[in-house]
């Protein structure tokens, strides 16, 4: 039963930026194939937490295991983990000097060291999956925000990761483009990918999440399946937050 195997284990992690404590004693286990949605007010440490999972931020203390590999200062381990963990950013962060196709092939070619023909075939396959095969030869600046974010998702998928991290993937998008990105994320979730998403799209969360995590002040204050999370959250701060964003 692969579903019950933990693939990410976060144990008592603290993170300090100077004197500021961004994460305090955070523990979270994500099983293979599970979808976790993290929400919370800004500054609550959501992004910091998922950035620790692929070591874009270094945790100050505690332990973090990804796919059985512990994240320490060891460069070899960090790169091994990053090859298994894809990340999608709020600001897309596509490589502006490369075409869409080159954005997708640069990782597999240079990091996975597969052949050029294979890399191109793989890039076309994932462009198809995010529904923009016709944009392969354009530069990122020529695409809309929604298209750029879908290219960013495809770029991560081309590394064939086992885990995908999403850091507020729809927050920088115009409203009419949010759904095209969420649709791709839902399809990805249905394909069995392990996902951690920081997002405030509660409709999406309700639909795909196995677990909802609410963070406040650098702590996880509530973990529950969506059915419980949205109807009877225990934590008062969480209730207040949900009232506020679900009001409209």
């Amino acid at each position, binding site marked *: 039963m692969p579903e019950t195997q933990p693939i990410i284990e976060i144990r008592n992690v603290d993170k300090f930026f100077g004197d500021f404590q961004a994460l305090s004693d955070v523990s979270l286990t994500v099983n293979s194939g599970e979808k976790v949605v993290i929400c919370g007010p800004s500054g609550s440490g959501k992004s910091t937490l998922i950035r620790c999972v692929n070591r874009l931020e270094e945790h100050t203390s505690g332990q973090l295991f990804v796919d059985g590999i512990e994240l320490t200062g060891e460069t070899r381990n960090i790169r091994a983990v990053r090859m298994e*963990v894809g*990340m999608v950013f709020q600001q897309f*962060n596509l490589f502006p000097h490369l075409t869409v196709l080159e954005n997708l092939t640069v990782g597999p070619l240079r990091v996975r060291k597969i052949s050029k023909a294979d890399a191109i075939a793989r890039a076309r396959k994932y462009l198809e999956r995010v529904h923009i095969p016709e944009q392969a030869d354009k530069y990122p600046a020529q695409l809309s925000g929604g298209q750029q974010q879908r290219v960013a998702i495809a770029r*991560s998928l081309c590394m064939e990761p086992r885990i995908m991290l999403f850091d507020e993937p729809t927050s920088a998008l115009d409203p009419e483009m949010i759904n095209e990105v969420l649709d791709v994320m839902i399809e990805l979730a249905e394909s069995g990918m392990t996902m951690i998403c920081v997002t405030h799209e509660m409709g999406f969360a309700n639909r795909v999440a196995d677990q909802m995590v609410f963070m406040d002040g650098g702590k996880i204050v509530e973990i529950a399946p969506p059915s419980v999370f949205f109807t009877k959250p225990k934590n008062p701060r969480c209730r207040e937050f949900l009232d506020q964003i679900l009001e409209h």
Partner: protein
Amino acid sequence: MSGRLGISGRANRPGTSIMMLAQARKALNSKPMSVLIYCGVMYLIIYGCLAGAEAMGYNWQWYRIPDYLFRMTDDGFQWGEISVGLVKTLLLSGQAFLLALIIGLAVALLRLSGLVVGVAVSIVFLEFVRNMPLLVLLYLFYYIIGAIFGLDRYTASVLCLAVFHAALVSEIFRAGINAVPVGQWEAAKSIGMSTVQCYRYIILPQSVKFMLPPMTGEVVHMVKSSAIVSVIAVAELTTIGRNLISDTYMSFEIWFTIAAVYMVVTLMLSVFVTFMERRYAVST
């Protein structure tokens, strides 16, 4: 009635003076007027030079200058001394600049490495070189380092120019690399790239467009500062000029010619890089 007229007349005055100013500017900028003023200024400068030379009884011999660029002898076509000097200057500055690029990139990467020792080494290098006159640096390289390692004057000159410009070039590299948004690093690292791969495939290609304009300035600067090696008698353009003058006493003609040659070279470099910049602007 007369009062009203007076008021309206006064109210119009600032308006008319602004209009007159605009008209005067337009007249000044009109083509015939511009040409006239330009010719007038140029005439004054050239007349001043000629009159000065006349007053000191200078004997102009411009007709002898082309021979120093190239000449046709019985053996056929031959490059003149000034052309040979120019080639030497270009070779010297070209080699020194290539070396400066390599040292400069290394210093910039050390500075950005975050390693305490690396940062310290690069800062000491930068401050040492930047706070020293080029002439003194050249003496250090020729009379001290050259003497210790047995360098000839040409090698000492190349090394000195390379080190001097490496300091300036490294700051251009550093600024260009820092101009690339931090999100590019994060995206590149998130797909598993090593630091070297990030630089090579993602960061440096993007920083080229930030570095091109100041780099041009640096190349031009290099060609010009290469003239200083004439003090240790490396046979480049300026040294050739000095030698020719001591042979022929044609100081006015030779110095004017040398200056013009430097100008032609640096102007050509600027035009070339403007063209390169346009190409880079289109592809990104």
